[in-house]
């Protein structure tokens, strides 16, 4: 009896604490692939559209581009132009583009894409009016050479823009740092500019902005609604160069994108999903807002203003 009880007890324990998962068939209906359309368009430039198919969660690898689709851009019910397919290159995915048509501010455009085997998709967006940057200045600069040969510049900058008070305006605000790479001419000790490259400037995690209205923060800038501060915004940002590679700090570029609601929601959700952790202390991955009917992705217009700051360092 005692032996039987012991076996039973151990059986219970093992079952309870170890057999806690099992392989099953999909508990959810696996959806058919959908067309995914991604296009951010702005004034006076050709409209480019990337088109590929979604894949189920059970599929691995990279989603495949969709070729030979019919992609049209319309104003109302009037087809403005049919986009043509451009094959991919090692540095760029294949895409569709207009050849002559360039969108304008304030007009609502519709994109339509169809391909056999997929449900046709449609999306609508417009380009908002630009908002000018009215002030962009350097306030301070300090630097520190690190042990690994990198130099960190701490920059104080101030920026302002003319937010229209009469409507909700959505912004994607970005800072881009230019870095110059110099090359020594032989062993002369003389240097010549070899090339320049650009890298995004990360925004501070806390600071003078009321961060509750900064809906996302990544290396690509911040998303802001309207103007959540009084007067110019003072920011403390950092830029790093590698002096071992003969890098020097170049100009600082500010880009204030005035974006459509579709752009804002999509980017905001993308950043949230990217930030979402896979750990057990975390919630489900957030969904991504999507303005493509019957499909996925985003078709969103935006406008922009840019300013440049020659840094005094």
């Amino acid at each position, binding site marked *: 009896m005692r032996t039987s*009880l012991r076996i*039973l007890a*151990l059986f*219970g*324990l*093992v*079952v*309870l*604490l170890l*057999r*806690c*998962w*099992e*392989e*099953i068939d*999909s*508990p*959810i209906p696996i*959806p058919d*692939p959908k067309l995914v359309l*991604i296009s*951010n368009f702005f004034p006076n430039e050709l409209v480019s559209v*990337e088109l*590929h198919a*979604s*894949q*189920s*969660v*059970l*599929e*691995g690898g*990279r*989603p495949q581009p969709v070729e030979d689709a019919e992609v049209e851009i319309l104003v109302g019910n009037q087809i403005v132009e049919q986009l043509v397919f451009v094959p991919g290159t*090692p*540095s760029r*995915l294949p895409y569709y583009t207009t050849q002559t048509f360039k969108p304008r501010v304030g007009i609502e455009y519709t994109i339509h894409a169809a391909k056999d085997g997929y449900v046709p998709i449609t999306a609508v967006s417009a380009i908002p009016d630009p908002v000018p940057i009215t002030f962009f200045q350097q306030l301070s600069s300090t630097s520190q050479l690190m042990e690994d040969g990198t130099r960190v510049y701490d920059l104080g900058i101030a920026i302002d823009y003319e937010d229209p008070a009469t409507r909700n305006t959505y912004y994607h605000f970005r800072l881009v740092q230019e870095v110059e790479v110099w090359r020594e001419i032989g062993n002369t000790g003389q240097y010549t500019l070899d090339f320049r490259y650009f890298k995004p400037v990360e925004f501070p995690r*806390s600071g003078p902005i009321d*961060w509750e209205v900064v*809906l996302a923060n990544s290396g*690509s*800038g911040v998303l802001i609604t309207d103007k959540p501060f009084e007067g110019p915004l003072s920011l403390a940002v950092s830029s790093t160069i590698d002096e071992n590679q003969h890098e020097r700090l170049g100009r600082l570029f500010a880009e204030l994108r005035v974006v459509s609601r579709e752009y804002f929601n999509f980017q905001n959700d*993308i950043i*949230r*999903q*990217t*930030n*979402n*952790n*896979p*750990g*057990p*202390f*975390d*919630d*489900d*991955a957030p*969904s*991504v807002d*999507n303005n493509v009917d019957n499909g*996925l992705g985003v078709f969103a217009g935006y406008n922009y203003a840019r300013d440049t700051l020659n840094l005094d360092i």
Partner: protein
Amino acid sequence: MERLLLLCCLLFGSFAGAAVQAQSILDEEVRIRRTDKTLSEALQHLVNLDIPLSFREDQVTGFNLTIDAGRSLSLRNCLEQLLTETGLKYELSPSGRRIIILPDPELLGLELTLYGHITDARSGERLLGANIYSPDLQQGTMSNFYGFYSMDIRGGARELIVSYTGYAPFSTKLVFDEDSVLDIALQPDATLPEVIVLPVIDSLLPVGVEAPGDYIDLEDVERLPGPGGEVDPLRNLGLFPGITTGPDGLGGFFIRGSDAGHNLVLLDGVPVFNFGHAAGLFSIFNAQAIRRVDLHKEAIPARFGGRLAGVLDIHTRDGNLYHNQFKLGTSIGSSRFTAEGPLIPGESSFLITGRYFWGGQLVRYFSERYKNRRGREGRMRYQLYDVNFKLNQKLGARDRLYFSFFRGLDDYDNTSRHDTTFNVINTAGAIFRYNILQEKRESVAWENTLGTVRWNHIFNDRFFGNFTFSLSNLDVDAAFVRQDSLREEIGGAETGTYYFETLGSSVRQLGFAFDGQYNLGGNEKLDFGLRVNQYRFTTSLNNEDELNENPVGPDFSTSTIEQPIEIAPYASLELRRNRWLFSAGLRSQLWWSRGATNLSFEPRLMVSNQLSPRLDWRLAFDVNSQPIHRLSSSTIGLPTDLWVPSRGDFKPARSNQLSLRGRWLWADNWRLEVGGYWREMTHLLAYAPGSERNSDWAENVSIGSGQAKGIEVLIARRRGEGRLSGWLSYTLADSDRTFDLAINAGKTFPFRYDRTHNLGLALFYKLSDRISFSTSWRIASGAAYSFNIASFNLPEPSEAFLNDPDNIILETGARNRFRLPADHRLDLNFHFDLPNHNQRIWHRFNIGVYNAYNRRNPLFYDLFTDYSSRNGALAADRYFVQVFLAPLIPIISYELNLDGRPQ
């Protein structure tokens, strides 16, 4: 004139004659028989002797005879002796020919107070929520949480009935001519004969004589243990209407569409911030230490506050005042003991209980072997214990002092490492060598510490007060490391995920409380009091997602500390008029945090009416405010949820609830309850998924609202003279949430535990006095959940068209758009109470099956990836797994009682 004189003479003559006749009656010699034991029998005997007596039978029953029977007395003396201390007197009828026995009108005019304590006769334990009721006055009251009661009573002879579930009803008739103290000791019904006649079984108690909440019968709990045989006072909560739980109780319980963190769980008046052992598989409350559990879903007394949904009010036993008692018990995996007894008999006692999960040692051994068999290194470890300690001391007739302490710990970690290398030969014959490293380390530890000192004082016959100093502390430490990498050994290309997260949190509440109860007279009662609490919240969270071959979760160093203060006075007035009961309460709450204050008011209104002795209804409106929020960061509700305070823009959450309930007692012990509720909740806080969680929690939350509505039905048969008892409950419910744009794009979505249908059945069948069979079955709609259904490629978020293959975006769709399968389970159990030859030692067994048909109710789904070489290429196969908690598990438990049959 002559006629007038004649008439006067006749009248005088007849009066004089009657007086003489009466005198002669009263002077008659009578003798009460020795066989007459009661006043009623003695008076009937006199009637049989042709004594012209008139009396109402109901007014003379219930009095034992105190006269020296068998001796000859004058009728006058006999009646005087018979009616002593009965509140009755005798009078001659106007004709003088009859003797009338009637209540003393002087006594009837007295408005008196009766007060005292109701206790267990065997242990001296004070009984909470016992009913004391006067049938002739049609009024009564209920003992408070310290067994004290105070009720109005009119002078004269009054019958009193005292009842309490699990005890033999006590009935007595007493004469009241002044304010009186009556301490009543009830006999546990386990000591009574098998067949008991209950005096109050065919009608509902008058309104106001019952506790407003639901009483969780601990005997039922003993007969329906949880997995492995562990007896858990909260195990059956999900079988009650309006309450649902996660699979196997995981994640706590959810009252009427509210979150688990919206419940106020009190142990001896001290809030418990996490009441789960083993992530909620069973609670920290040791059934051997518990005296009573009350659940309030509506008509919540004003003394409770600080949570939105409901109150689970748990009181521990005091310890036997008269005898030492010792119990030992074990179930599959854990053992427990209880020791109690008097320090000074009748004056003070102690109680100590403890549990230890010895199965943790076996888990370690078996998990190591199990993982090795699956080609993995690692093991699982689980340590668990809890201990209760309580002292109480009488300080004279009016005072009593209590000290109670609880500590419980869960310490779990699980490691698993799978490191393998394999070759892929492509069609050209080239060999690619891959290394797969899959490693998981997780650890969670949480510890509850509760302490309280309480002082009861009876100020006077109408005024009872209790002072409490309390401490409640919860510490949580958790870490999670996960690596799933695929490395090409020659080329060095590496893909995969690495992730670690550490979490630490602590919440402490230091409190002072005063609770007063004042009997205003005229069936009016005033409850009032004050609570002052000082909190301390410490939270720390850190995470990283860089790929690392040898991941080690770093220590987290950043933490936030907040110390808000809460001041909450309350008052509640209860009026009883005929068959109506009105209760109006108001609780206010001043919350001070980081220099900002928030003042809120919580009105509680209730009206109840008894339409007939078998039918009543109740309407209640409750407003609740919750200044502390539980942020659930996981989908399944782990102990790692953070408690955070309201501050600044994060106002206390608030709920308004309107509820209506009707009850019908249609047969002996059978009861039907039908109710409905509507609830709205505002200022709810939730994690905004995808927020950067390294910083202050306040930057990572969303504010939202919720609503819940439902219909509840309960058919129950109370334990009585029959063999069968139990209940059937059904709830039709709907609950959803709406948050700001950060969650589900601001659109309304179903609450995770929005179970549209929820049916629970519990049956208890008494095979004999010592053996019973119990079963429970529950079925509920599946919980709502989210899952990625598809993915698409998106280059760098703001710069489309860059060739970045790693940026895969998941399509999750609307939040909680899917439903898990229906959650159901059947438990069976036989319960035995077996004594030794002299019945001093009792053995209690439970033998049964948990989840009898091995239903695997999923906690959640996950996706796993297996890599292999296929057709000369690396292939990744993805598949779904269902994570569940408890399959079929035997119930085996044993308890040894060294001092008679356990209650």
